[in-house]
């Protein structure tokens, strides 16, 4: 992490009453529309889905790849297979049912997926497998899990990233999960249906994809972060022209996130 960023991070922490993780969770929660089916992975994406459900999208449905649909989350799960996701669901199935629901166009078109990754490129393609050579990696990560499936199937995805130059790259070390592939028409050319990444939420700001070019651009900066800092931490050139300042979490949002979603601060810390 470059020194500038460390400062920024601390500054945000000091000047305001919320952490970056809280900001990120709230930013993602705001992206979720009421009535949507929300696929969540482990960690902050779960928190975002819980926050959305408790704040602005009470009719959204939380949904896990492990087969739980409409989980009643009374405590934050620490994995998508946590028994907490099995409580008071509509149906407890398995992975086969969960992914079929996403591949199925009638339901998949209503799913928003929240993903994370180790690397992202300008078209929102993701790497969560290795850094370095695939056969002899410098760093090995967990692998795709459901990420490739979700990114292939669902209507739109929201992506969480740590904003660093080595993570926002020209070329992925390994292409795990499809975004917009190589631009307009890319998904169709390789045989995928509609869908694709819509928003990237980082510890510095919010990025989206241009309608025409499908290239990532800077949509918003967090309070105290400049567009230039974000470009400095990105390994490809971003259009910075659309960047607005992101409205910080409200007191109500923070209260619900902290008291209702993660009172033990298992994910927030």
């Amino acid at each position, binding site marked *: 992490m470059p020194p500038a960023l460390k400062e920024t991070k601390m500054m945000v922490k000091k000047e305001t009453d919320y952490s970056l993780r809280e900001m990120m969770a709230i930013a993602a929660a705001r992206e979720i529309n009421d009535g949507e089916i929300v696929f969540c992975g482990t960690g902050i994406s779960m928190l975002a889905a819980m926050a959305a459900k408790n704040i602005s999208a009470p009719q959204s449905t939380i949904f896990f790849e*492990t087969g*739980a649909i409409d989980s009643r989350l009374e405590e934050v799960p620490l994995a998508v297979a946590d028994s907490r996701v099995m409580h008071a669901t509509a149906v407890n199935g*398995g992975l086969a049912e969960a992914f079929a629901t996403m591949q199925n166009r009638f339901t998949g078109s209503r799913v928003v997926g929240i993903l994370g990754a180790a690397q992202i490129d300008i078209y929102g393609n993701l790497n969560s497998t290795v850094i370095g050579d695939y056969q002899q990696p410098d760093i090995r990560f967990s692998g795709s899990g459901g990420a*490739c499936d979700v990114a292939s199937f669902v209507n739109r995805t929201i992506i969480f990233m740590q904003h660093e130059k080595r993570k926002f790259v020209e070329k992925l070390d390994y292409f795990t999960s499809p975004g917009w592939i190589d631009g307009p028409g890319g998904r169709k050319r390789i045989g995928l249906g509609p869908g694709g990444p819509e928003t990237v939420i980082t510890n510095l700001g919010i990025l989206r994809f241009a309608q025409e070019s499908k290239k990532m651009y800077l949509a918003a900066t967090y309070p105290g972060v400049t567009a230039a800092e974000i470009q400095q931490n990105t390994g490809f050139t971003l259009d910075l022209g659309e960047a607005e300042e992101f409205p910080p979490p409200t007191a109500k949002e923070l209260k619900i996130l902290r008291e209702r979603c993660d009172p033990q601060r298992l994910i927030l810390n």
Partner: protein
Amino acid sequence: MKSSQNKVTKLAAAITLLVKDNCHLSIGGFTINRNPMAAVYEIIRQKKRGLHLYAHSNGQGVDELVGAGCVTRLEIAYAGSGRFAPTCVRFRRAVEKGELKVEDYSNYQMTLRFMAGAMGLPFLPTRSGLGTDIIKHWGFDKALRKSDETLPDQKLTTIDNPFGDWCNSPKLVLVPAINPEVTIIHVQQADRRGNARIQGLTFADVEQAKAARHLIITCEELVEEDFLKQEPDRNQIPFIHVDAVVPIVWGAYPTACYKHYDYDPRYLNNYRLAAENEDKYQAYLIKKIMKTANHQEFIALNDDEHLKSLIADPETGYATGLKRN
């Protein structure tokens, strides 16, 4: 064996009989839930070597088998234990050191591979993976695949939809079936013949179970056949698939078993810390696993109060309010 009326077996005997060195093994469960940990530890105690392991998004069971040196090849979608280890530590180390050959698939691809095995099919199709490196990069190369008849000749393949653009799917990825020699799953309830009931999410356990030539079921509770037959809608695995039934309480510990007990955050955190350091890990292996004669002794390393804190609330199915930091 599969038509026996009483398949109840001791764990050590079942592992000795069915899990041979170099065999193709699959284990059930997902990340930190319902891994067949008692069986995993027994495999480690019996020093099995050269296993070709299939797992799904798993998690504690995989990492312990890899860490103990039992596994040579691994086919998997995700090696992580949720917040306790976003990437499994010993797995990561083994891959980075070149000690473990891995074939990567996505979760759904692995599900479909087990499902194909269970359905008696050579492959199943999906749109997942089109255009990605999961298709391009093979962990097991053509030469290896050609030399080993227990492997399909390709990692996967893509085809044009023979029905044109039916369902707006011009191209499909075909993933090859897995038929493990042995699958081990842990369930909440089973009877002597092998009928089994999983409570809560089934993950891909049912597919893994039915895909296997041999199936070992470890269970929290051994129940009467009539008990299971009173509510057959709640059962998933009929006895015809099962070779051995091993009743073993806390059989998934330190992972969770819905409606019975939660995962043990203290154990999982300590495991990660040990896994990150070579000496600590060897000490962990000896103290916790090799020096305990069986799962009962392993469980008895915990004081009763700690175990009690993990017991599931009957309503929610997990240990409500458990300290999980």
